[in-house]
C-alpha cells in the first residue's frame, strides 16, 4: 500500500502540461533553426517545422506515456525495444505520407523540396525519440530523488519522535525509584538525605538539560553512573559490593540514557532482590571508537509476574532505543546463569 502511494505521489509530481509545453517549445526552436539552414527562418520554414512537429507529437507521446511506463519501467526491455522501433518506423512513414498528401495539398503554393531525405527523417526521429525519453527519465529521477529525500526526512522525524517518546518512558520510571530512595532516607531521618538530594539534583540536571543535546560525552555518562551509584548507596544494602571500573582512551560521544537504565535495572532486580552478599560489577571501556559496557550482578529469583513484566519493559525500551540510534552498530546480550545476571552492550561509536 505504501509502495502504491509512493508511486502515485511520484506520478502526480509529473506536470504533463508544463513538461510538454517546454519539450515542444524547445523542439520547435531546434527544428526551426535546423530546417532554416544558413538563412533566417522564413514563413515556409515555420509552416514546415510546425507540420513536422505535428508528426512527432503522437509517436513521442506514445513513447513517453505508454512504452516507457508499461515496458521500460517494468523491465520488459525486449518488448520495449520492439515497440520503440516499430513506433519509429511507422511514424517516419506516416511523416512522409503526411507531407506528400496533406501538407502539399493544404499549402499548394509552397514548395517544400530540399528539407530532408528519408534517411535524415529517420535520424531526426531517432534523436527526438531518444532525447525525449532521456529527458522524461531524468525528470522521473529528479522527482524520485526529491521523494526519497522527503521520505528520509520523514523517517528521521519519526525516529526523533520515537526516541523522545522512549526517553519519556524512562524518566518517570527513574524518578519513581529515586523518590522511593529519598522517602526511605527521610523516614529514617538520616543526614545523608542532603547528599542524596544533591546527587539526585545532578542526575536530574543531566536528564533535563544534557539529554536534549543529542549526544553526550562518555565522561559525562560516567559521572552520571557514579552519581547514581552514590545515590543508591544511601539505601545501605547490607554486605553489598558495588564495583565500577572504567577506562576511556579518548573522549567519545554517546546517545544519552542508554547505560543508566541498565545500571538501574541491576540495582532494582539484583541488589534489592534480597539476595545474600549482593554485588554489582560494572565495567566500561572505550577503545578504537568502540564502547564495551558490562554489568554483572547476582539476584534472588522472585516468583512475581509483575516484577518480571517491569524488568521486561525496561530492557525492551533499551533495545528499542539502541535499534533506533545504533542500528547495525551495536551488540546487546543478556545472560542469566545460576542467579548471576550479565548484560553486555557493545557499541561502535
Amino acid at each position, binding site marked *: 500500500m505504501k509502495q502504491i502511494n509512493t508511486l502515485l505521489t511520484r506520478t502526480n509530481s509529473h506536470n504533463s502540461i508544463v513538461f510538454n509545453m517546454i519539450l515542444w517549445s524547445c523542439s520547435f526552436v531546434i527544428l526551426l533553426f535546423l530546417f532554416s539552414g544558413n538563412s533566417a527562418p522564413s*514563413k*515556409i520554414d515555420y509552416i514546415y517545422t510546425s507540420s513536422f512537429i505535428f508528426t512527432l507529437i503522437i509517436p513521442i507521446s506514445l513513447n513517453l506515456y505508454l512504452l516507457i511506463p508499461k515496458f521500460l519501467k517494468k523491465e520488459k526491455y525486449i518488448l520495449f525495444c520492439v515497440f520503440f522501433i516499430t513506433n519509429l518506423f511507422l511514424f517516419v512513414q506516416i511523416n512522409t505520407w503526411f507531407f506528400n498528401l496533406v501538407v502539399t495539398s493544404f499549402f*499548394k503554393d509552397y*514548395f*517544400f*523540396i*530540399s528539407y530532408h*531525405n528519408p534517411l535524415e527523417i529517420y535520424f531526426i526521429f531517432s534523436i527526438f525519440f531518444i532525447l525525449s525519453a532521456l529527458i522524461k527519465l531524468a525528470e522521473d529521477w529528479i522527482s524520485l530523488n526529491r521523494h526519497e529525500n522527503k521520505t528520509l526526512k520523514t523517517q528521521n522525524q519519526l525516529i526523533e519522535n520515537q526516541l523522545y517518546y522512549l526517553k519519556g518512558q524512562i524518566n518517570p520510571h527513574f524518578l519513581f525509584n529515586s523518590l522511593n530512595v529519598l522517602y526511605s532516607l527521610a523516614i529514617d531521618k538520616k543526614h545523608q538525605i542532603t547528599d542524596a538530594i544533591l546527587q539526585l539534583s545532578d542526575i536530574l540536571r543531566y536528564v533535563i538539560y544534557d539529554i536534549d543535546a543529542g549526544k553526550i560525552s562518555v565522561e559525562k555518562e560516567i559521572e552520571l553512573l557514579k552519581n547514581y551509584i552514590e545515590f543508591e548507596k544511601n539505601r545501605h544494602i547490607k554486605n553489598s559490593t558495588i564495583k565500577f571500573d572504567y577506562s576511556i582512551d579518548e573522549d567519545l560521544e554517546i546517545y544519552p540514557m542508554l547505560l543508566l537504565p541498565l545500571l538501574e535495572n541491576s540495582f532494582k532486580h539484583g541488589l534489592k532482590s534480597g539476595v545474600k552478599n549482593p554485588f554489582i560489577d560494572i565495567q566500561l571501556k572505550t577503545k578504537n571508537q568502540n564502547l564495551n559496557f558490562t554489568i554483572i550482578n547476582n539476584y534472588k529469583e522472585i516468583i512475581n509476574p509483575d516484577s518480571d513484566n517491569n524488568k521486561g519493559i525496561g530492557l525492551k525500551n533499551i533495545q528499542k532505543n539502541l535499534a533506533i540510534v545504533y542500528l547495525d552498530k551495536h551488540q546487546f546480550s543478556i545472560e542469566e546463569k545460576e542467579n548471576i545476571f550479565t548484560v553486555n552492550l557493545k557499541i561502535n561509536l
Partner: protein
Amino acid sequence: MKIKNTLLVITFILLLSSCVVKSLNPFYTKETISFDKNFIGEWIDSKKGNWKVVKFENVFLSNTKKNWEPKFVNGYLDNEVEISKKSLSKEDKKLYAEYKDSYYLLREYKNKKVAFIATPFKINNQTFLDFIPVDTQEDIDNLLESHSVYTHSLVKYDLRKNGEIEIRWLDEDKIESLFEQKKIKIKHEVFGMLNDKYLLTASPKDLQKFVQKYMASDDSEKWETSTKFTLNRLNETD
C-alpha cells in the same frame, strides 16, 4: 568571321541561359527517361532556325567513324547507324551509358551553330527535355570555354496533333518570384555580377519533386516563358 561566329554562339547561349531556370544537376533520373524516336529528324522553327535532332550515340559514333554527317530526307534521318559497343573505349562506354537515350541537337540560326544534349523524360505523363550544351562547342574561345560551366535547363515538350512540336523552357522569372516570396525551399546558389541569378543545386530527385509540385500548382501561367519554339518537320513546311 571566326570571332563573329564565336560571339554569336556565346550570345545564343547567354540569351538562352539568361531567362531559363538553370540547374547544376539534371532534372531527370534514370528511371524517368522515356526516349521517343519521333523527335529525331530535321526541324525548322518559326524564326527559320534549323534544328537537327539525332540520337546522341549516332554523333558519338561519328567521332570514331570519321566524316559521318546526318542525312535527312523529308525531315527524317536517312543514314542511322548501328553502334558497335565492343569497339568503344572506356571513356566512350561511360558516355554511352550516360547518354544512350539522349538526343544530340544542333541548332543553326543565321549561320550560328549551337549543340545540345537533350534527354527526354516523363513526369506524370508529361514529357520534358533536359537541355545541356555540349561542352566542346566549335568556334568558342578556349579562354572563355575554360571559365564556363554549362548548366541543365528544363524544357516542356508537347507534340501537337498537327505534328508540330512545342518546346518551352521553364522561365527563370517564375522561380525567382518563388524565391522572393519565400515560398520555396530548394537547394540553390545565387551568382552573377549582382548576385541576382539563381542556380539550382538540388539533387535530380529533389528537382523532380519540384517539377511534380510545380505541375500541380494553381498558377495558370506557370509555363509562360520568353524562351519557346514551335518546331515543324522540314519537308512539311516546304
